[in-house]
């Protein structure tokens, strides 16, 4: 079972560009796909936490990467994620670069993300996409029951470059990476934590117009996330449903 998270991925770029995104096109033709309309704030730390803990933001109370001036770490969150529950049952599971905290979290994987886990420069973004793909391929060879892997590059790029042609270049890079992964498992979930849109069109403003470093924010998080599934007999309506599906599949509570 393979779960691929793509932070900030939106149909608004994928669907009009399927001619240039052959893996997405193939997935759209051969798999189920839908839009997740987030009922809670489209905010990465909180959404990824919900997705893999099965708890709503109100229940897990994890909202930000930084709390009281300190980076939030895994040990600060008093909850079990799906990998903890599966491991307790002796089911092999690995997780790579899961961005509910920064640097993103790894479970039973040694992975050092580029850019301290918050890649911003083009080189760091490319490095992240390539290194996550390589590490995922390496892990898949070990044949664990469940692999969860996440890319954060599209989200980071969208903050500063939404609306620019460079966005499509990076969707193409993700598309190429997906081409190496999606055929390697019969059961697949590809999901984003939220979409993205023009800053002025965001139904919920989550970012400042101008950062404290003086950068203009061009895109903001949008509460419509993408979902593509292959051989998943479960109705995933909200991020928490990914946990619920996995818990049901592996018979954990």
């Amino acid at each position, binding site marked *: 079972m393979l779960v691929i998270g793509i932070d900030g991925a939106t149909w608004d770029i994928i669907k009009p560009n399927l001619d240039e995104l052959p893996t997405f096109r193939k997935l759209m033709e051969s798999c189920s796909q839908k839009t997740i309309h987030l009922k809670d704030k489209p905010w990465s730390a909180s959404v990824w936490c919900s997705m893999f803990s099965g708890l709503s933001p109100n229940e897990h109370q994890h909202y930000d990467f930084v709390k009281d001036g300190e*980076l939030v770490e895994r040990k600060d969150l008093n909850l079990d994620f799906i990998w903890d529950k599966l491991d307790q049952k002796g089911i092999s599971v690995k997780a790579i670069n899961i961005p509910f905290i920064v640097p993103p979290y790894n479970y039973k994987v040694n992975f050092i993300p580029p*850019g*301290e886990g918050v890649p*911003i420069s083009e080189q760091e973004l490319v490095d992240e996409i390539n290194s996550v793909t390589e590490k995922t391929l390496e892990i898949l060879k070990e044949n664990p029951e469940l692999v969860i892997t996440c890319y954060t590059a599209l989200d980071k790029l969208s903050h500063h470059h939404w609306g620019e042609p460079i966005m499509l270049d990076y969707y193409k890079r993700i598309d190429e990476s997906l081409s190496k992964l999606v055929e390697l498992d019969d059961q697949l979930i590809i999901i984003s934590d939220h979409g993205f849109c023009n800053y002025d069109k965001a139904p919920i403003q989550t*970012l400042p117009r101008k950062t404290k*470093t003086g950068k203009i924010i061009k895109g903001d998080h949008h509460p419509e996330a993408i979902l593509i599934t292959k051989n998943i007999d479960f109705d995933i309506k909200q991020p928490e449903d990914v946990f619920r599906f996995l818990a049901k599949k592996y018979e954990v509570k």
Partner: protein
Amino acid sequence: MPKRKHTTVSIPIIMYKKIEKMIQDTGFSSVSEWVSYVLREVLVNMKKEKRKDAKVSEEDEKKIKDRLRALGYL
């Protein structure tokens, strides 16, 4: 109206009296001043302890926060 800088917490009267006696001739002008001093020390030590367990070094934490600021997260 100026913003309040202090608030009240309760401690047992017996403890208050012990502290009051203990801080005589120590330079602390009140129990409140002494309690604030002790709690500040405790908080600093707790922060140091937390840092010891932290997976991210102080230097990396600063870099990460700078990056989060650049993206508008902070």
